[in-house]
């Protein structure tokens, strides 16, 4: 009976070839990436002049996108580390989804920063002339560190699954087989090995939490260490982290739904998972809402002269539409959906997840741009187009391309590796039945 269950699990969870839908999906992602690459080639050739960025709005959707990527990558630490350490077992099938989202998002965060640089050809200056006083250097250090830790956290739990994968030689084909063997041929399922990996995963789970906090706190400091209205806040680290956990969890809801329906994983990503994940999202949305109230109500109550234009611009002025859209789609509506049991059904939760992610993207845009349009001194002696910002097609294409790229990594990973940990699922079911 158990033996059969195990085979069934393996059969269900082994990575599958792309179907028709999958192929279309991958091709369209590649197409979007290619458009982004073309736009970036133009930017490399003509300089940042192809963007709508100018002296006042010197950071635009590239930086919003960067913050968005860093934010969404935090989910890896939440699902794998926080829940693991608190002995929550229902999240086991979601760990690898969360971890691959983290790895791909953090990789693209690094890439998009290079895209934003005026002189990417001088990137090496960060290493040969790096200045420890600069928060950018801190960011480079923590992002690299987080990427490594996330990769390790992806790798260790993958080892037992690699052993399973290696067994299916004909199914794998030559290249994948080679890859699996390269990565995990030494794995023999011995207790000594398990002892090491269990310990390693525990160490990683503990280490990744402060590092994850660090990446997003440091990212928030890129703004909070300046004097600008809307950025000059001691609350920014916590505000960013709470927002990051929210968008990451929203992303996991989407991924859960897509993998579940596409790979027919209803037995593994169950309604119960959506229910629990939905509750987590409600909690995180409430926390983020709380920080938003803090972030906007307190300064708005004082309405300092330098901040007045900025806040009024958000509440009732030129950014009011986007602002209220972001607040409602990222927090209010998802809370209203997920607070009800019916709303935590897969489809509704999936919609809520999309709302969270889309709203959060615009939230990041609002964190970056409106502040830059409200400098302390008046915007004088500058051409008219310096006083507004709307991204050019190149910026949209590059930003879109990077999002597509991140999705492509997740998709390809799911093609190559089991997106739900096979070994751990087997263990979990066994222990359940033994109870």
């Amino acid at each position, binding site marked *: 009976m158990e033996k059969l269950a195990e085979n069934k699990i393996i059969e269900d969870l082994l990575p599958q070839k792309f179907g028709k839908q999958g192929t279309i999906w991958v091709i369209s992602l590649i197409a979007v990436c290619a458009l982004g690459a073309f736009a970036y080639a133009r930017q490399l050739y*003509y*300089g*940042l*002049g192809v*963007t709508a*960025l*100018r*002296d*006042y709005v*010197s*950071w635009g959707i590239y930086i919003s996108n960067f913050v968005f990527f860093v934010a969404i990558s935090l989910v890896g630490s939440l699902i794998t580390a926080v829940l693991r350490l608190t002995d929550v077992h229902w999240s086991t099938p979601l760990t690898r989804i969360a971890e691959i989202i983290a790895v791909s998002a953090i990789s693209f965060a690094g890439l998009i920063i290079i895209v*934003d*640089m*005026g*002189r*990417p050809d*001088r*990137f090496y*200056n*960060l290493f040969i*002339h*790096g*200045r420890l*006083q*600069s*928060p*950018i*250097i801190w960011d*480079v250090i923590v992002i690299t560190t987080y990427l490594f830790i996330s990769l390790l956290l992806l790798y260790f739990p993958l080892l037992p699954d690699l052993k399973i994968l290696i067994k299916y030689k004909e199914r794998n084909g030559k290249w994948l087989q080679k890859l699996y063997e390269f990565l995990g041929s030494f794995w023999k399922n011995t207790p000594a090995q398990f002892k090491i990996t269990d310990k390693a995963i525990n160490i990683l789970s503990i280490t990744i939490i402060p590092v994850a906090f660090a990446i997003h706190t440091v990212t928030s400091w*890129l*703004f909070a*260490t*300046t*004097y*600008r209205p809307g950025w000059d806040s001691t609350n920014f680290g916590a505000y960013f982290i709470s927002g990051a956990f929210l968008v990451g969890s929203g992303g996991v809801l989407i991924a859960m739904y897509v993998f579940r329906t596409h790979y027919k994983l209803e037995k593994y990503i169950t309604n119960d998972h959506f229910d629990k994940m939905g509750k987590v999202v409600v909690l995180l949305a409430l926390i983020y809402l709380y920080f938003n109230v803090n972030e906007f109500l307190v300064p708005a109550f004082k309405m300092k002269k330098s901040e007045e234009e900025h806040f009024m611009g958000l509440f009732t002025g030129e950014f009011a539409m986007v602002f209220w859209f972001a607040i409602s789609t990222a927090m209010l509506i998802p809370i209203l959906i997920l607070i009800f049991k019916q709303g935590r059904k897969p489809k509704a939760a999936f919609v809520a997840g999309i709302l969270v992610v889309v709203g959060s993207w615009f939230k990041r845009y609002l964190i970056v741009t409106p502040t*830059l349009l409200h*400098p*302390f*001194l*008046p*915007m*004088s*002696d*500058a*051409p008219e187009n*310096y006083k507004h910002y709307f991204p050019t097609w190149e910026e949209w294409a590059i930003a879109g391309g990077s999002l597509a790229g991140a999705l492509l990594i997740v998709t390809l990973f799911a093609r190559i590796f089991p997106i739900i940990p096979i070994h751990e699922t087997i263990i979990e079911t066994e222990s359940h039945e033994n109870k």
Partner: protein
Amino acid sequence: MKNNENSRRGFLATTLVAGAALAAGCGTKNPFTPEAIEEVKPSGELVKLLSVDGEIIEVDKAFLKPVPSLPAISNDEARVGIPGKKFAMVIDLSRCKNLKKCQSACNHMHQIHPGQNWIKLNAMQDADHTAPYWQPTTCMHCDEPPCVKVCPVDATFKRKDGIVLIDSDRCVGCRFCMAACPYSTRVFNWEDPKLEPAIAEKPYNCETSMPQKIGTVGKCDFCPDMVRQGNLPHCVSACPNGVFFFGDILEDSVTNGAETFRFSELIRDKAGYRLMEDLGTKPSVYYLPPVNRNFPFENNTAEATKE
């Protein structure tokens, strides 16, 4: 360190041409010839000149003034700055008529991209019922510059002489400094600066900030190339109303070329102040309030831009 500097300044004798005085002996010491000239060692190449008395004198090439043939400043020297100096600027708002001569001279001398300006003229009105005035803003050359704090690669730096410069050969174009500057003083070369070949082919020097480079940040540099020769920044000499005063704060004096004041007295008597003192950036640019104005405030910006 200190002693070193002082003894170095004592080196050279008087004035415009040092050669003759040198010959007269080392008794004469001039603390205030441009330091660079003092630092320059005799090149050994002598030029035969005619004295006012009609005698033939020989002067070392390196000491020729007003056109000393100084060796090019190395990047390392440009990063340290002119020793023994601490520069400051005083901008007298009561004299500003928004003629923008400072701006056009600056733009021309630094070949700034059309539309961008290192000196911005802001029409200021502090409150509804207070009088408006024109406020030229340059880089404040803060003593605790927020832009330098955030630079990841030492591309912008604070020098010994108080000047904050940018090394466009080093800048990676992250624009963090632009976000960090509360005075919105920095501009970015978004496009390839369209320079005449004669300028574009010159070797880059952070003291001239020329030729500007695509993908890097630029800003007012207090014209250290002019200052090193003992001259005034371009905006100072271009202003017909004498709005800008420049000087070495260690000499306790500032000048607009025509008038020279004791810095401490000027600031005391005219209640000089700095912008956004509460931010703690400690600017090197001081403002004199717009009292007893020389000109009425007229906002003819629309016409001005047409010109």
